C-alpha cells in the first residue's frame, strides 16, 4: 500500500461483502416464494424480502464504490486522503443506518415504519428501490456529501488524472441524481418521470463512469499499459455511455403517460447502449493482451475481463432484447425485465466491485497478491457465480417468453396467476441455480481465509 490512508477502504469492502451475502440469502427467499407462495408468510411477505434484496444490493454497491474510491484516489492523486477519520466516521454512520433500515423493514409493517420515520413530513417512501425511510435518505445524502468532500479535497490538493476526473464526475452525478428521490408529486406520471432520473441516470449513466474509472485503474495497475492509452479508451467509453444513455432514458417513457415520440427517441438511443459495453470488453481484452508485466494477482485480471464480457451480455444484449418499443409493448414488466436486471447488475456493478476488491484487498492486507491456493478458490467462485447468473438469466428469459406468450400475445390471454403456475418449472430451475450462486459466493468468502501467509509481503 503506497499511502497509509488507503486503509480506510478495508472496512467498506468487508461490509460490502457482508451485505452481498445478505442480498443473496434474501434472493433465495424470494425465489422460493415464487414457487411456494406462502413461504415465510405472513412474517416476511414478498415485498419486504424484495426490499431487503434490492436495498442491500444498492447499499453494498455504494459501499464498494466508496471503498474503491478511497483506495484509488490517494494513489491517483499521489497524496494522502484529505481526512481518513471522516471516511471512517462515515463508514460507521452508513453501516448503522443500513442495519437500522433493514431491521425496520423486517420488524414492523411498512406503513408503521413510514409513520414512525416522518414520511408524513415529506412523502418519499414506497417507490421501487427508493423505499428507504426519509431519515435514511437524508443520511445517505449526508454520507455521500461528506464522502464527496473528502475525495474532492484529496484530488484538489494532489495530481488530477483523467481517471480521477471521470470517477469524480460519476460520483457527483450519483449524489445529484439521488436528490430526485425526494421529489414525489401526487401526479403519478410526473412521479414516474422523475423517478427514472434517479434510477436510470444512475445505472445507465453516471454509475458507468465509476465502472469505467475502476476498470481503467485496475487495468493500468495489472497490465502496465501506458496511462495515456488507457485514459484515451476511458474517455471514448464514457462518451459512448452518456451520448447513448442519457436520451436512452426514453425507453422508460413508452407506457407511463409520456408522449409517444419517446418511443422513437428511446428505441433509437437505447439500441445504441450496447456499444459502450462492447467497447469496454474490447478495451479490457486489448489491454490484457498488450500487457507489459505479469501481475501476480491473476484473479483480479479475471474479474476485470469478466466485467467487460458480462456487462456487455447483461446490460448490452439483454437490454437490447426488449428495448425497442414494439417489442417492449409486450415484454414490459415481465420476467424478461427481471432476467435483464439480474445479469446487468451482476455483470456491470457486482463484477466491477469484485474487481477492485480483488485487486485492492491483498494489498490492504500487506501483499501484492493472494497465495495461489486462495486465488484458485477465488477463480472457482468467479466461474460458479458467473455461470449461475447466466443460467438464472436464461431460465427467467424462458419464463418471460412464455409469460408474454400466454398472458400478453395470445388471442385468449390467461390471467396473471394462471400463467405464473404454468411457468413454475422455470422458477424452480432458477431457484436451484440460485443455490449454486450462493455456493459460489461462500467459496468467494472462504478464499479470504485460505493460505494467506504463503506469499511474501508486498
Amino acid at each position, binding site marked *: 500500500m503506497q499511502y497509509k490512508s488507503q486503509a480506510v477502504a478495508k472496512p467498506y469492502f468487508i461490509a460490502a461483502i457482508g451485505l452481498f451475502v445478505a442480498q443473496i440469502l434474501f434472493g433465495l427467499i424470494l425465489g422460493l*416464494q*415464487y414457487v*411456494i*407462495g*406462502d413461504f415465510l*408468510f*405472513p412474517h416476511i411477505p*414478498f*415485498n*419486504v424480502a*424484495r*426490499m431487503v434484496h434490492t436495498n442491500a444490493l444498492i447499499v453494498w454497491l455504494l459501499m464498494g464504490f466508496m471503498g474503491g474510491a478511497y483506495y484509488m484516489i490517494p494513489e491517483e492523486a499521489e497524496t494522502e486522503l484529505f481526512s481518513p477519520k471522516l471516511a471512517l466516521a462515515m463508514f460507521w454512520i452508513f453501516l448503522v443506518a443500513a442495519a437500522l433500515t433493514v431491521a425496520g423493514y423486517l420488524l414492523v409493517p*411498512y*406503513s408503521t415504519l*413510514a*409513520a414512525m420515520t416522518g*414520511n408524513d413530513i415529506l*412523502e418519499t*417512501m*414506497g*417507490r*421501487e428501490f427508493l*423505499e428507504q425511510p426519509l431519515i435514511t435518505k437524508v443520511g445517505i445524502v449526508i454520507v455521500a456529501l461528506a464522502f464527496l468532500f473528502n475525495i474532492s479535497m484529496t484530488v484538489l490538493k494532489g495530481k488530477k488524472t483523467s481517471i480521477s476526473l471521470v470517477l469524480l464526475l460519476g460520483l457527483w452525478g450519483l449524489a445529484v441524481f439521488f436528490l430526485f428521490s425526494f421529489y414525489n408529486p*401526487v*401526479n*403519478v*406520471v*410526473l412521479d414516474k*418521470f422523475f423517478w427514472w432520473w434517479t434510477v436510470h441516470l444512475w445505472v445507465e449513466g453516471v454509475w458507468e463512469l465509476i465502472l469505467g474509472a475502476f476498470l481503467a485503474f485496475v487495468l493500468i495497475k495489472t497490465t502496465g499499459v501506458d496511462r*495515456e492509452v488507457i485514459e*484515451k*479508451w476511458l*474517455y*471514448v467509453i464514457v*462518451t459512448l455511455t*452518456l*451520448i447513448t444513455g*442519457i*436520451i436512452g432514458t426514453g425507453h422508460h*417513457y413508452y*407506457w*407511463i*403517460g*409520456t*408522449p409517444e415520440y*419517446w*418511443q422513437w*427517441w428511446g428505441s433509437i438511443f437505447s439500441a445504441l447502449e450496447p456499444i459502450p459495453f462492447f467497447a469496454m470488453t474490447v478495451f479490457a481484452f486489448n489491454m490484457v493482451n498488450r500487457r507489459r508485466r505479469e501481475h501476480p494477482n491473476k484473479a483480479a485480471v479475471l474479474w476485470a475481463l469478466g466485467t467487460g464480457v458480462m456487462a456487455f451480455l447483461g446490460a448490452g444484449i439483454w437490454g437490447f432484447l426488449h428495448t425497442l418499443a414494439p417489442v417492449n*409493448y409486450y415484454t*414490459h*414488466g415481465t*420476467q424478461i*425485465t427481471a432476467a435483464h436486471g439480474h445479469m446487468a447488475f451482476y455483470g456491470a456493478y457486482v463484477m466491477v466491485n469484485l474487481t477492485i476488491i480483488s485487486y485492492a484487498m491483498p494489498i490492504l492486507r500487506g501483499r501484492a497478491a493472494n497465495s495461489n491456493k486462495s486465488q484458485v478458490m477465488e477463480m472457482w467462485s468467479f466461474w460458479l457465480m458467473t455461470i449461475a447468473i447466466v443460467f438464472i438469466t436464461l431460465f427467467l428469459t424462458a419464463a418471460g417468453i412464455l409469460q408474454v406468450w400466454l*398472458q*400478453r*400475445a395470445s388471442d385468449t390471454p*390467461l*390471467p*396473471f396467476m394462471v400463467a*405464473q403456475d404454468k411457468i413454475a418449472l422455470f422458477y424452480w430451475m432458477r431457484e436451484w441455480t440460485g443455490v449454486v450462486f450462493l455456493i459460489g459466493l461462500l467459496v468467494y468468502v472462504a478464499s479470504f481465509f485460505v493460505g494467506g501467509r504463503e506469499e511474501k509481503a508486498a
Partner: protein
Amino acid sequence: MSGAFTKSMARNIFYGGTVFFFLLFLALSFDTHSQLPKRDMRQNITPQIAEGKKLWETNDCVGCHTLMGEGAYFAPELGNVVARYGDEGVKAFIKARPKEGIPGRRSMPQFNFTDAQLDALVAFLKHVNSVNDANWPPNIQG
C-alpha cells in the same frame, strides 16, 4: 487507436457530447411537460386520489405488483385492475385476504383497510387507468 487521435481530443468529445445530449434531454423533458396536462388527467386529481396514492406507497404495493408495468413481477398489473374486476371487485378482493395467507399460494397480506381507505385506493387506481399511456397493457389481463 491510432496516434492521430489524442487523449485531449477524446476528452473534448466527452465533455462536448455529454453537454449536448444532456441539453437535448432537458429540451425533450421540457416539451414533455408542456404536453403532459393533455395526457396525465391532472385536472381530475382529488384529495381522495392523493390519499389513495399515499396508501399505495405506504403499504409498498409496488413491492409485489406492477403499475403501468413498473414494479415487481410477483403479482398482477394494477394499472387496469379496476377495468378487470370493477370497483367493488377490487375492494372485495382486498378485504377478503386471509390473515395467514392461502396454503402453498402467493398471498396478499390483510391490510385491514377502512372503507374510506378502500375507496381512496380504488379512486387512485381508476385515475391511473385513465392516464393516456399509449394503449398499454396489450389486453385486460395486464
